[in-house]
Structures are given as C-alpha cells and as structure tokens.
C-alpha cells in the first residue's frame, strides 16, 4: 500500500515539475532549415548558407508580466548593445499566445546582419516561462527567409 502511495506521490511531483517548467518547447522548423537540435528547452536549425534559427525557453520571476519582459528585452538590445530597431509588432501564435516581434539591424563580425526576435511569456505558478525565438542572417540573405521564419515563430508553443 505504502509503495502505491510513494509511486503516486512521485508521479504527482513529476507532473507538477513538468507543469512548473512549462513543458516541452515545440516549433515547426521551416522546410529549408536543417534541425540540429530539438530538445525540451531549445530548438536549433540552420540554413544551407548558415543563417541560424534558435528557439529557447527560460525561467523568470512570476511577477514579471509580458509587457515588462518585452520592454526589458528591447531596452537591452537598443540601449546596451546598440542594435537599430527596424520594426516592432505584436504577434499571436497559432495557440493564441500573445507575443512581441522585434526586427533589428546590427553590425556583427564586420558585416551587417538582421536579427528577428520573438518573445512569448507563459504565466506559471512559481515562475514564468519565457520563450525567445531568434533568427540571425547577413542582411543580404535575411529577406529570403523572413516569411518562413515568421511562420515558424507562429508555431512556437
């Protein structure tokens, strides 16, 4: 009997932990991309010309709301790192989650790059799950992938 209770307790704890952690990250990688990693907390994919797509989930304090994290991220990119903001828009994933999409231009490794970031915040009991999608490509390649990356961002869950 006590063994059954123990097993049930472990199962409940695991379920609670999974729920607290926000579950498994998922994203439909665009066709032209090769998936390098598809784990619980991150998905990595790359194009033949080495443009990089990276989706990750992080944990943050539960009292930070979505608008707060959006402003914090934007502010850090612009104020601390000197990225040039090209476009900012509110997006919604296919599951109905509200998100923020930021398009930046930045010089990195001696070359002009464009960077498309998307942010979703999932409220949790103890902490929030913050999911960030990032796509980086040299400026000359970027536009060719933009549409498919945006479609992929919409599938993040």
């Amino acid at each position, binding site marked *: 009997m006590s063994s059954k209770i123990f097993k049930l307790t472990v199962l409940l704890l695991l379920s609670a932990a999974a729920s607290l952690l926000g579950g498994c990250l998922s994203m439909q990688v665009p066709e032209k991309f090769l998936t390098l990693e598809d784990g619980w907390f991150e998905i*990595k994919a*790359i194009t033949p010309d080495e443009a*990089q797509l*990276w989706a*990750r989930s*992080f*944990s*943050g304090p539960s009292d930070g709301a979505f608008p707060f994290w959006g402003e*914090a*991220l934007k502010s*850090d*990119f612009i104020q*601390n*790192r*000197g*990225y*040039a903001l*090209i476009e900012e828009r509110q997006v919604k994933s296919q599951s109905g989650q509200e998100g923020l999409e930021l398009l*930046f*231009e*930045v*010089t*990195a*490794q001696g070359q*002009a*790059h464009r*960077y498309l*970031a998307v942010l979703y915040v999932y409220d949790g009991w103890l902490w929030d799950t*913050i999911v*960030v999608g*990032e796509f*980086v490509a040299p400026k*000359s390649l970027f*536009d060719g992938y933009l549409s498919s990356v945006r479609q992929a961002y919409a599938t993040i869950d």
Partner: protein
Amino acid sequence: MATKMISAFLLAAWSLAAGCLAVPEPEGVDRFLFEQAGEGAVRGAEAETAEAAPGQQRGALLTSSGKEPATAAESAPQPAGAPDAGKRLIVYTATFGLLVANLEDAVENFMKKAEALGGYLQSRDNASLTVRVPAAQFKKLLDDLKTLGIITEQSINALDVTRQFMDLSLRIETAEKARQRLLALLERADKVEDALKIEQEVRRLTEEIERMKGELKLLSEQIAFSTVTVRFLSSAPPPVPVRKRARSRFTWINRVGVEHVLEDF
C-alpha cells in the same frame, strides 16, 4: 617652280587639316587641331606661298574659309553617319540619389529595367550604379526610376554636340581630300626631296584623320547611349557597431542576442 608649287600645296594641306574653315575655337578635343593650325601657319610662313600657290587651290581654300561655321557645315557633303539636317545631337547624362527600402532588390530591379530598354551596366561601386541606355529610352528609364523609391537628388544634363560633330566630320572629309591631292602630287614629283616632303605630309595627315575618326566614333557612341548614374541609399537606419554592453540584471536577457546566436549556436 615645282618646288614652290609643292610648298604651296603643303601649306594648303596644313591649313585644311588644321581646321582653317573659319570654325571658331571649339572646346576640349578640338584645341589640339587649332594648336596644329598655329604650327601650320609658322611652317607656312617659311615657304614662299603667296605668289606661288595655284589659283585653283587658293580658290578652294578661300571658298571654304569665307563661310560661317554653321553654313559651312550645312553646305558640306554629309559624311557617313552624319545627322539629319536640323536635328540636334544631344549627349544626355543624369545622376540620381534614390532612397529605397531594400538596396539589393532596388539595384536588381533597376538593372532589369535598364536591360529591358536595351541598356547595359557600365560600372558599379557598392550601391552606386552607372548604366548606358539608348538615347531614345532615356526618358523612359528616368520614369521607371521614380517607381523604385524616393528621389533625394537629381541632376540631368543635355549637352548639344551638333556643332562639334559637324565640325569634326567636315575636318575629316577635308583632310581626306587634301590627302588624295597630295597622293596625286606625289606621283608627279620629279625630285626625291619633294617626294620625301610629300610623303611626310601624307603620313601626318593619315594619322590626323585616324585620330579624328576615333573622336567621331566616341562622340557618336555618347550620342547614341545616354548615361544614368544612380546612388542607392537604404531607408533603414545605418548599422551601428555593437558596443561593449553593460550586462542586464535579467539572466535570460544576457543569454540572447545576435552575439550569442553567432558565437554559442
């Protein structure tokens, strides 16, 4: 007597080739010819010409030199490739600054439009392009250009080269006639000294004719194809180099960004 006749003809040839058709001093390329004319006059002064020149040759010279340049050009037989009477010959050039959303796309579209009009790329320097288009399509290309972005600066120049073209054509024709006369004279020359002088003059005239023909060809090409230079400017803010950043107080923010994607991916 024969020597005097030859000297007189040589002077006449010099004068003809040097543009003694009362055409006023032109700009640029023609200056060389007028410098030659000065040289010709010096050389001519050394020869005994006044009383020795045959009336027929002097008459020919006077007839040409007595006219106004435009009249002379109009009355002269039209050389090959010469323009229709009354039609102006214009060399068009234009320079534009164009603000566009996407540099690569705009450059590609502009090239496609120029090629569709029969044009070709002359040079490219980063986001600055120079194309040549048939003169008849010049205006069409400028109209097309306006659809690609916002024009920030423009300069259109139309240079009328009708007179320069006619003048050059006439000089070539006159020099060729003089050369023919010299060749005829060469056949009748008795003395070796005379023959050498004539041959030297024929050589000089031949070189001069070739040079002028080259100039005429270049001018014709400039008339036939207009030049359009476009400096494309991106409407996106210029890339700012990544500064050494102060770290965010939020750990996850410190783990995202271009630098991390490029280095830690």
